[in-house]
């Protein structure tokens, strides 16, 4: 009996952590020479600090919808910033003519399709892609 209880508890814990942990998969096109990225590199690209990968190739950043769960999880893990803080941050960069924010795509399906077609693209998804046209270069573990 105790062993059954333990099994149940262990099962529930596993299930619980699986639900809370929504990993974010950062992807590039399969033909990109980039095979892995550090969190800092992804942050530099998505916060407009740089427009290119470390090998000098131009990087084209794509974003998910601002009101989505994946968007919030991605930026909270990457920068610790909320959607409102990001809005404020980009207002400064955009309206001073420094740089434009990443382009928003309407859905994860669209993200998969665009990155799959575009050798310079970088994007992110809330699920591990099975598509052969993209490559995962970083998995961001979101805080529980």
């Amino acid at each position, binding site marked *: 009996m105790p062993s059954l209880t333990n099994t149940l508890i262990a099962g529930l814990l596993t299930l619980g952590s699986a639900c809370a942990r929504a990993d974010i998969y950062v992807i590039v096109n399969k033909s990109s020479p980039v095979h892995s990225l550090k969190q800092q590199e992804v942050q530099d690209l998505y916060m407009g*600090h740089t*427009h*290119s990968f470390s090998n000098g190739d131009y990087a084209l950043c794509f974003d998910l919808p601002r009101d989505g769960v994946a968007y919030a999880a991605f930026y909270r893990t990457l920068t610790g910033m909320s959607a*409102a803080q990001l809005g404020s941050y980009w207002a*400064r960069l955009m*309206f001073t003519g420094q740089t434009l924010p990443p382009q928003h795509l309407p859905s994860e399906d669209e993200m998969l399709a*665009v990155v799959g*077609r575009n050798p310079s*693209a970088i994007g992110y998804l809330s699920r591990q892609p099975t598509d052969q046209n993209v490559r995962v270069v970083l998995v961001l573990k979101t805080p529980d």
Partner: protein
Amino acid sequence: MSKKRGGRNLSNADPFAAQAATQHRGLVGIGLISLLGIAASLWGSPAPAAENEGAVRAVQFNGFGTVGSLASEITQPWHFRRDSDQPNDAGGYANMLIDSRIGLQANYMPSPQWELLGQVVAKQREQDTPVSDMLQWAFVSYEPAADLKIRLGRTSPDVFLLADYRDVGFAYPWVRPSVEFYGWFPMHSIDGIDLTKIWAGGAATWRAKALYGYAGSTLPSPPGDDPIKLRAQDFTGVTVSRESNGFTAKLSYAISRVSVSRSAQANQAIQALSPIEMLAPQLPAQVVAEERQLVQQEAPTGAWSRYFGLALAYDHNPWTAQAEASYVSGDIFPEHAIRSYASLGYRIRSFTPFVMASRVWPRSRPLSAPTDWAAALTPLIGAPDAQALQQVGTLSAIDINATLQNQRSVALGLRWDFSARTALKLQWDYYHVYANGAGLWGDGTTAAAYANIFSATIDFVF
């Protein structure tokens, strides 16, 4: 800036005007030619290939705005202003015109290296301000390498931390940037060129920028007089900033030849004082020196001004802190000052309560009213005329002293981000203005005063 004097007669008052105008047209011309060149090259270029999808961005429109109102309680009959280029009585209905504004921006990126950008800002300005001043940015930018950027056209006088986004309320916590620090700074954009170099040093990102150009501004004058034209020629600056882990430091230095046009009122005062110049050899040196100082301050022409700025900012949840200090030197009386502010905010979910303290210390001494002019002049021109000249000198000194800036303030406020693109801000400011320090206020005098300003704004981006 010297709001008491109005402006006209640029041709005779300002020896640099003609040269500046030529230079100005030259730079605008270069900008236009570049724009035409890019447009022409795009005309013939094929549609972007599928693999370049997203690399060529269609024209993108974005905007920002503020709707706000304030209530003021001032112990003198002055008017609160946010910027020195607002009219003396800038409030409008329910004081809504002081902080309300709207900006619209268009970006076009024909390729990853090239960008065209234009931004217009509509806000309360002095009545006779040329419509072209609404054009905040209009430049072409080129990135020959990922870490190098050149911009040509109407860009920013980027010498202080908020110099190029003072109007974008959504980008900062307060209702408005520190009036003591930014309220006097009349340059909102410069026509010229800038060059930015970015490099990484360990975990930090370094940014160095050099800029050169011309800036102009229209400032208010007394009723019936023409507005004052301020010109900053050969505006040359260097800034270096370092950013790491939410910590930013920025150091800047700029110089410019600043001239202020003569108003009819200033011309009258200068003419009235001219007998002293004619009688100079027969007068005590002090009388002549005092007269020359008054004339110089009535309409400064082509004096070199120097701007030093140091900014520190820290933004790491839940804290946000910022402080700046500047020193401006030069022959222009009200400009010459030390300015600083410090601000601290703490984020609690979508609420950010904040405090800010500001101070401006003038480095120009108030002019004392001429004391012995009448005595020195009576033997030469007779008592009535000598008395009259004494009177002109006294009024002129009072007028100039009313443009000095000497005040401090504290602000307490709350920003509430009730959506990702809209924020409500409430703020209370308490100002203490010292005698001969009301230069930042509309219709300011030489008196001291206290003021309470209660403001509410909604800031948004779209």
